[in-house]
Structures are given as structure tokens and as C-alpha cells.
């Protein structure tokens, strides 16, 4: 088994644990590369099916290519799609810096969906290497009342045993991609032939390395037009993946504050 086989096997194990232990369960589908890989892994785990709904928390500000991709693959992959919208930015904590405040809309939208469907488990495609705060995450991350992440009081997690608390008002965020790195995602996309939104590939010397809302995501300089070229580019890259995400850089603690409140 090479490293991708091991990552795949571990993610499948995690997805099967979540499916067994958390009901009702749903998977977040942000339409980005990571969540497409995650959906692909779910189909591997459940032999071509996705036996739970996928949720798109729609800020209404995604790129048109992303909406197109969503509609195409919902059909092709036979997905049960749940759509949720987000409150207007005026309803969000005004003490947050502007981009973080905009991103926090998604947190509020997600919280509303979790409550509406009374979800016990939400599968999300975050990775440890994306951002220092995400590096602190558990594979099964219990969220208390109000969906708060109690970063100082996380459960122990070892030997593939996960905390699955069942208390009213609680849910568990499940992170099957936590151990994957950005380059692993791309190598797996290449190996498996997983379809992605075109925005990840260079047009006029620029491409998106990470996809969020149009107003708070910016492209990076790149000439990579294929998956293989992206991989080659990443092997020499020394900047962080989320460099193009505005809310990570507004203040030292902006991103952590977002995550404590339930942002991914």
C-alpha cells in the first residue's frame, strides 16, 4: 500500500464509522476539490452509493461555474442534495473583520440546516495542513449546544476510537480528510480521475487554489492547466493554500474566532 492507499483506507474507515454511529448524517459539499474527493471516497466506502444526503450551504455568492458543477454532478452521481441559504451579512456579528464577517454567514446557514434536519453528524472536508487552527481538530469533533467548538476541552481520540456523544442539541463534525495534505488531494484526483470545477486550472496566468465566495477569494499566479501540472507546481510551492482567503489574514485570531463559532 502506498501513501494514497493508506489515506484512502483510513478515510473509508472513518466514513463507515460515521454512517454506523451517527444518525441522521449528512455530508457537506462545498463543490471544491476536497469535498469532491470526500464524495468520491464515500462512493468507495459504500460501493458506488452515497447513502446519506449531501448539503450545500449556499451563500449565493459562489462562482457560476460552481453552481453548474453542482447541478451536473447531483444528477450524475445520483445524490440527495439538501440546499440551505445564509442570512444577510447585516445579521452577523459586526465586531468581526469584513471578510470574516462575510464568511460567518455560512456558519449561520450551516447551523440552521443542522437544526432543521436535526443532524447528529455532519461530514466536512477540512484538512490539518490548511490552517493552523484546523490542525487542532479531531476526526470526530463533538459540538455542544449552539454548535460551539470547545477547543480547550476536546475529547481524547486515539487507536481509531472516536467520541460519539448523544445528547440533545449536540452534533459531531466528522473529518475524513484531516490527515490529507493539499498535494495528496491532487495526486488522488489525478489517480482516480475525479472531476473538478475548471476554476482550479490556469486561465490567463491565474488559477484558484482554494474556492470560496467570489468576493473573498482571489486567484494565484499559475500556468498549471492540468492536474499533473498543478501537482508539479505544488511540489515547489512555498506559500500557503489559503493565502487567497481574505478572512485568514485580517487579524491574528480572526480565523480561530470563526471556527469556535462553528465555521469549518
Amino acid at each position, binding site marked *: *500500500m*502506498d*501513501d*494514497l*492507499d*493508506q*489515506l484512502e*483506507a*483510513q478515510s*473509508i*474507515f472513518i466514513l*463507515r*464509522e460515521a*454512517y*454506523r454511529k451517527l444518525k441522521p448524517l449528512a455530508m457537506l459539499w462545498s463543490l471544491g476539490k476536497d469535498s469532491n474527493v470526500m464524495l*468520491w471516497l464515500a*462512493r*468507495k*466506502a*459504500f*460501493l*458506488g452509493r452515497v447513502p446519506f444526503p449531501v448539503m450545500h450551504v449556499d451563500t449565493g455568492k459562489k462562482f457560476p461555474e460552481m453552481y453548474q458543477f453542482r447541478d451536473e454532478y447531483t444528477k450524475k452521481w445520483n445524490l440527495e442534495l439538501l440546499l440551505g441559504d445564509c442570512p444577510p451579512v447585516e445579521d452577523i456579528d459586526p465586531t468581526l473583520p469584513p471578510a470574516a464577517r462575510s464568511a460567518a454567514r455560512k456558519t449561520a446557514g450551516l447551523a440552521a440546516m443542522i437544526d432543521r434536519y436535526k443532524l447528529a453528524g455532519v461530514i466536512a472536508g477540512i484538512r*490539518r*495542513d490548511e490552517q*493552523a*487552527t484546523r*490542525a*487542532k481538530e*479531531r476526526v470526530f469533533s463533538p459540538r455542544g449546544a449552539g454548535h460551539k467548538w470547545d*477547543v*480547550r476541552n*476536546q*475529547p*481524547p*481520540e*486515539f*487507536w*481509531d*476510537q472516536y*467520541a*460519539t*456523544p*448523544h445528547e440533545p442539541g449536540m452534533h459531531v463534525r466528522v473529518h475524513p480528510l484531516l490527515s490529507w495534505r493539499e498535494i495528496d488531494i491532487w*495526486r488522488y484526483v*489525478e*489517480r*482516480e480521475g475525479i472531476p473538478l470545477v475548471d476554476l482550479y486550472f490556469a486561465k490567463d496566468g491565474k488559477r484558484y487554489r482554494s474556492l470560496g465566495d467570489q468576493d473573498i477569494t482571489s486567484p494565484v499566479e499559475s500556468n498549471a*492547466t*492540468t492536474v*499533473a*501540472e498543478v*501537482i*508539479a507546481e505544488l*511540489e515547489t510551492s*512555498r*506559500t*500557503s493554500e489559503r493565502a487567497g482567503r481574505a478572512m485568514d489574514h485580517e487579524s*491574528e*485570531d480572526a480565523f*480561530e474566532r470563526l471556527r469556535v463559532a462553528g465555521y469549518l
Partner: protein
Amino acid sequence: MSTIPTPAPQEAATPIVIVGHVDHGKSTLIGRLLYDTDSLPDGRVAQIIESSKKRGLAVEWSFLLDSLQIERDQGVTVDSTRIPFRLGTRQFVIVDAPGHRQFLRNMITGAADAEAAVLVVDANEGAQEQTRRHAMLLRLIGIRHVIVLMNKVDILDYDQQKIEAAERDVTALLHQLEIEPTVFVPASAREGDNMASRSDKMPWYKGPTLTEALAAVPAPSSRADLPLRLPVQDVYRFDTKRIVVGRIERGRIRVGDEIVIGTQGARARIATIESWHTAPQVAAVAGQSVAVTLEPDVIPDRGDFLYPASAAPLRAARIRTRLFWLRQEPLRVGESFRLRLATAEHQITVAAIDSVVRLEDLTEHPAEEVPPEGFAEITLAVSETMLFDPFVPGTSDGRGVLVDRNQQIVGGAPLIGVAESVAGRNAIHPTGSAVSLWDRARAKGHRGGVFWMTGLPGAGKSTLARGAETRLFSRGIDVSVLDGDTLRAGLCSDLGFSEADRRENVRRAAAVARILAESGQVVIVALISPTIADRELARQIVGEGFHEIFIDTPQATCEQRDPKGLYAAARAGKIEGFTGIDAPYEAPVRPDLRLETANASSDETAARLAAFIGDEIRLDEAAQRQKS
């Protein structure tokens, strides 16, 4: 089209955990290592310098890791972090584990899957509490490849003698834990000595630098060649097929292999290996998450092991385990949890606390409870017979974990082996009491206990037992007597006097005595129990609180007394196998109390017995104070 070839398959990253006492320099070490090996993203070094400046400090390498705001404000690392890191072509993941005591569970979360550990010890301070605690954990989670980094040797002026003296102390400590450190590296993380490049200040040191030591960590050994263990994770019914899924923990499967399923022992063949978007599979190895169909189509449960008939796991209902207890409150005998082992979950009760580790010197001692975040060896009584393999470092065998009713992990319990069965039978379903022995003792004002009197027929056991009972009862002690004849009149009326029946008689008496003692009573047992093996059985069944009392009366005296006329009957050949006549009596070698009755009145002897029992069941002063 691109001409760039697809990258070659890669080895998985080797996880390395960094542990050690708070402030001994773990985070500094990691920051420095990343800097020296040029592993930092652009901008990160500038960020550190700026952050350090903002706080009026010299360059603080640890800021790289202390990425949470709260950590920087308090100057401690809250949780473990994982940092990818490359040496040559080999990929590592560094796991930073915090030194602060209350964050033990985070350390385990980070360290449990590591291949190797770097134990950072401040060469000036030597091993401290967290050093010992972390070393203990390395042992319990099964990490055997330990690199000891003697940090801050610049403060010792790089002096060989001082550094080696500090090393000797750490060696002695690790030796107690049966950990053989791979190498000691004298280093200064802050100054960069012996980190990624050889220090010119310690020409006497010929060993590897830290990066050389890391590069020499062996790759994980393959589990594919061990006998199969496939714990069932779930069973799906898709279309018309029943599909059994799980991850192969060790060994391999091939289509056509015959396997045994769980404790029920049903046999089946692997009919197919199912997959999606891969080439058709006929075999799979350890580490793979698989989906199989079975022929015949038996229905396993989650938690069942699939294993080869030629290499079955152990089977038991009482299991000895090591324990690292993660709660902030103590653990006591009688508490109930669920034991998770791979995908199985079993109801268990803590049957005994066999020993507890004293962290000051890492020695093992008997104790009534496991202290908060303590280490111990305990015996678990499982509500049903379960299958398991004993814990082996570097495999997933025997990785027991205790969870509470809320499915929260409360401790790690590497399974050591089968514990002596209390009743000699496995089909027991003990449930724990919420009232602890200690609670009962405090309420009654004395401990419970079993005082097992052995001696020849006619030695005076029953008479003395009743005499002591009366005396103790008059002092307010909750006492009762289990007498051989009384037992045989009721509980044991189905038993004869064959060797097997005598042994069963002893077993029943001991089991009843244990129940009474656990309810807080003082139990005096008067039973011939002629063989050493009989009394050993009783001692095992009763456990703690068993006292052996030898009523030492010469046979001639017994025969002369012969209160029940039994000697006469035996002499006349009316009783076969009578102890002392035609069956042997094995006197105790080292009884807890020996009472000679030939030259004393039964009153005096009963008073001596009562005094001995009174001493043994006394609560200590601390407990007395607690009571009042």
C-alpha cells in the same frame, strides 16, 4: 497536454511525537528543526520574527507552533499539532504534544499512532514529573523507538561530564519502564547545536544529530504476514447482497479463504471482495478497508473478528489490562464502563485494581483506587466471553479503550492477557455496585474481610468461629460464620466427598464469603479445606482481604475430642477418605495466624482470634477521621 509524469507512489509519512516536561523546549525544538531544514512556508519566518518583536522577545521559534491565540497569550501549547516535514526523500509528520499536566488526553491523541518519539529533557533540570508521565505513556501506547534529546546543553557549557551524568539519570528512569532509548543526542534547540548540523562545541560527541537520528527511524513493520484479524465494522444490505465491511488489522484475505466468525465460531468462505472504481480484487492485505460477501451467507455482528481457524484469538471473560486513566477523578473497583476493542464494544466492570504506579519513582503498589490521570494494572470482568489478542506494540492488537455511558473515552487499556477466573467459569455476567467497598467500610466503621479457618476434623474450628463471632458482634461488628456442616446441610447438599465435590464445596464457600465480604461483612469460614490447593483456590476467589488461619491441634487431641463421633466411625471403616485417617491433611506453611488449641481454653483462643480479626478490619486513622 502536459508532459509531466504522474509522481511515483510514495511511502506514507512517518509520525514522530515530541514529548517532554513543560518548558524543556519541545516547541522550540520543532520550530528550530523546521527552520534548519528549510521546511517553513514563505512568510512564516517573517511572521515569527514580527510576532516575537511585538511581544518584546528574541526570536521565539515556538511561536510557529503556538498558533492559537490563547496559547500565545499563556505561553503554553494547548493541543497537539501535526506538522509535515521532509528529510531527503522521506516524509515525516511531527506531532507536538503539550507538557501541561491537564492536557494529557491531547498528548495521547497526538502520540498514539507515532512510530517513534523524541523525549526532550532539559539537561540542567533532568527528568521531571511530565518526563516520567510521558515516558510511562510511551510505554503504554507501545512506542519503543525513543530518541532522547538532552536539551539546553549550552547552559552546561557543553561539558561532557555534566551532560553524561544527566543522561545516566534518564537512562535509569527509562530502564524502569523497559524502554531502551535508541540514542541520546546532546543538543541546544535554541542555538541549533546537533539539530540539523553537527555542533562544533561538543567534539567529544560522536553520535548522530537529531535529523540523522530521525532519518534512522525504521519504517513500520508490515502486518500483512501475521494471521488474519478482520473486525467487522458494519454489515450492509445493498440490492440483494449482504456485504460485510471492515479494515483488515493484520494478515490478508483471498477469495476462497475459509474464516471463523466471532465468538459464535461459525465458519464461512470469502466469496467475493466487493469494490467500486477499482480493478476486480481477489485479495487484500492489512491496512485496507474492504467489503466482502460470505458463503454461506451468515450474518456477523459489528465487533466480530473474522480469523483463521488455525490462529484464533484468546477467549476470556476476565482480562488483565494496563490502564492509563484520563479522568480527573479516581477510578474504583466496581465501576462499570464499555470496553472498545477494534469495532467491538463490551460491557465491563472493574473487578480488581491489581497495582497502581507511583509517579514519583515509577514503582507499583497495591491501592484502593486509581488516582486521577493515573496508571495502573487492573482486572476487567466482561459481561460475556470476548475474543482478543494481547497488546503488542506496533500492531493494533489488544488496543482496548474504556468509554463511559456518553461514549466519551475515559482511558486506554492495553490488554495484557487472561485473568484467573474467579469462578473457574466464563459465563458470568457480573454487574458492579455503585456503593464502593470504601463507602461500606466507612458506614460500618470497619472493613469487610474473610478469615478462613483450616484444620483437622475436631480441631475446634466451629467452636472458635462461634466464640469469636459472639465477641466481635458484641463490639458492633457485622460478622457471620460459614461453617462446613451448615453449608453441607443447605447450599452444598448436592455434594458428596469425592475430590471434585470437596473442591466444589470449597469453591462455593469462598464465593459466598466473597459476596458477604464485598457487602462489608466480616466472614469467618470454618472448613477443613485439607489441601494447600483448596486454600489457594479460596484465596484467589476471595482476592483482597483473605486471611488464612490455621487451627493447629494435634491429631491425637482431635481424635480424643471427636465431638461428632467421626473419628470413631472412620476407624471403624464406616467413612472413606476421612481427613487425618485415610486422606491427607496439608498444614498451611505460612498462615496469617496460627492458633494452638491443645494447651489453652477455647475461651482464651476465641478471644485471641477475635482480637486478631479486630486488628485486621480496623479502618486506619485517616479513614476514622473521615468518618467522624
